[in-house]
């Protein structure tokens, strides 16, 4: 059994190695801004996946944190003239606070009720973004400067910006990996699999859930913050419930509860949005069809199916 899961881990490790090489090569092959967008969504999905994949909590309001992060970073960089890194940290901090409030209320309920509470609270955050004067309503915050990192590195240069985004992306992904493979992550998985047993073992389940929720919100906020610096704008798109749905879609396509799943999912969804935009056919319809096909054919998501295939092969051989 352990050889089977080892085989699954091995295939994911190969995937990580390939991904790292691709990350270095990508800006010379693909359009850098596109790859940066990919990384933002991948990190956002990884944060979401931390909750659903390892904690079993389906949040349907994650756009609230992603969008809050976007607005805060944009405001900090544009109005206060903060350093880009500080702006992103500020975004993560703001999302942490939002996550603390939303999480504290939502984890009191389970299952569909949990999802509905996160959805309702994220709608409240959306209305704040719609009404608050600093967000610019439907125009959004435009013309956000990328700025000079530490006052030295000019992020207006595409490769500099690419390096900056990659660094934050890798750091974020490492944080997710570290959380999942820590004792904390083990307990989280235990709670997901059997909450009553975790309680009977003496764990304060609510505290674990809340911590996971807040970490996830913080990472989503950082992803949103980076995205607003990449595109030099923050808008309502990132804070609507459709965005909460999109991150569910990304994670499902890639594979829930796998480290690389969110990355693969993000590649598929973002690439479709971009490259199908010039096709003479409505993009949402194509996205929908692909989603239906994936749910019917690869229940575990793409990376999930790969892991499954590897572990089955290993157990046959073993």
């Amino acid at each position, binding site marked *: 059994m352990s050889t089977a899961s080892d085989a699954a881990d091995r295939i994911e490790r190969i995937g990580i190695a390939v991904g790292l090489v691709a990350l270095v090569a990508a800006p010379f092959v693909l*359009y850098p*801004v*596109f790859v940066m*967008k990919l990384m933002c969504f991948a990190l956002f999905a990884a944060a979401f996946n931390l909750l659903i994949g390892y904690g079993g909590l389906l949040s349907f309001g994650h756009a609230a944190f992603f969008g809050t992060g976007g607005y805060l970073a944009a405001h900090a960089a544009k109005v206060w003239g903060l350093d880009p890194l500080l702006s992103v940290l500020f975004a993560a901090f703001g999302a942490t606070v939002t996550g603390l409030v939303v999480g504290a209320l939502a984890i009191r309920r389970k299952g569909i009720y949990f999802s509905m509470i996160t959805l309702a609270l994220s709608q409240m955050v959306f209305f704040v973004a*719609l*009404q608050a004067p600093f967000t*610019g*309503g*439907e*125009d*959004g915050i*435009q*013309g956000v400067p990328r700025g000079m990192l530490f006052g030295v590195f000019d992020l207006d240069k595409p490769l500099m910006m690419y390096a900056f985004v990659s660094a934050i992306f890798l750091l974020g992904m490492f944080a997710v990996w570290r959380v999942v493979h820590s004792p904390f992550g083990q307990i989280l998985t235990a709670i997901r699999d059997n909450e009553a047993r975790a309680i009977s073992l003496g764990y304060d389940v609510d505290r674990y859930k809340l911590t996971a929720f807040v970490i996830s919100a913080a990472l989503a906020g950082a992803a949103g913050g980076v*995205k607003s610096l990449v*595109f*030099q*704008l923050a*808008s*309502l*798109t*990132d804070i609507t419930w459709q965005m909460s749905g999109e991150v569910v879609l990304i994670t499902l396509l890639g594979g829930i509860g796998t480290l690389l799943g969110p990355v693969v999912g993000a590649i598929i969804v973002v690439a479709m*949005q*971009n490259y199908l*935009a*010039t096709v*003479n056919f*409505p*993009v*949402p*319809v194509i996205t929908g069809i692909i989603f239906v096909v994936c749910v019917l054919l690869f229940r575990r998501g793409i990376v999930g199916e790969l892991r499954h295939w590897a572990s089955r092969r290993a157990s046959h051989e073993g």
Partner: protein
Amino acid sequence: MKRHVLTLAMASSVALASVAGASAQVKIGILNDQSGVYADFGGKWSVEAAKMAIEDFGGSVLNGKIELVTADHQNKPDVGSNIARQWYDVDGVDMIAELTTSSVALAVQELTKQKKKINIVVGAATSRLTGDMCTPYGFHWAYDTRALAVGTGGALTKSGGDSWFFLTADYAFGYQLEEDTAKAVKDNGGKVLGAVKHPLNNADFSSFLLQAQTSKAKVIGLANAGLDTTNTIKQAADFGITTGGQKLAGLLTTLAEVHGLGLKAAQGLVVTEGYYWDLDDQSREFGERFLKRTGRMPNMVHAGTYSGVMHYLKAVKAAGTKDADAVAKKMKETAVDDFFGKGGKVLANGRMVHEMYLLEVKTPAESKKPWDYYKLISKIPGEQAFFTLEQSGCKL
């Protein structure tokens, strides 16, 4: 061996020719919503209008072919910005037009300034494009929030609709539209009896419509957009508001929406547009050609896209280069005199100033033929409809 050399020579000459061709080409991008709520407001019909402009121009300029690329930004500013960046950086696009949805238009206009290209906004409403967010390379062609407010608010008040009640969508765009329109109403001697805010994407307008009905205001102004406007108009028909003598004024409604609603629901609605096909021979000529190609009559966004693309191409030809500074200068120097912008001129902030029309939707009995939807109430001179350079708040 000889054959190889020959092939090589041929291949390289083809390559050289294509390089030479590429440098002289002018590439135009149409970026808008082609699958969402604005798919009929602009959508692929705008692409068709741009194609017509390029064909009418002759298909080539500066000894190079004019190419057209198009994309659906899905109303997402990040998708729009990503595509626009790629067009400018990689694909060598020189000008992007249409740009429905304010957030996308503002983002692309900012980008255009950085990359020193040209953008012509047709479908987006916000007057900030030529106000505090104006750029030397950004143009705004068909209409803006100010023109809609002055057109519908001012001209309608002058023609007798002098007491108003507003149904306002509860967010910045709604407030802005209500405020601008209310000001135009008061400036023309009208009065505002009241206003009620409704949530965005509301489904049931009955309580708001009843308040508006009992206010006895002569005009009910709809300071909302998209689906909200459509829903209000449909439900107002159920309450018999226009048949009861009150007028509905749709602040952001075009021929495309009226067509979607049908005359039965939309009759009596008053709108402001920059173009209507059945105004004179020139506008009819364009409208009918467009109808033949697409099966529908153009609204001001489609006609405006044609006009904007045409004006750009003329400017490129006159300037003898596609350099953004030279072309922008030519575009501002040259008068826009076509079926769309009659006596039109472009201000230094990029605003195309032209005549606007206050129109009322006909009743089913008045409509004699397909697409016979509007009757003209009054013409609004461009100088009144749009901000002057000083009023716009544009600092260049």
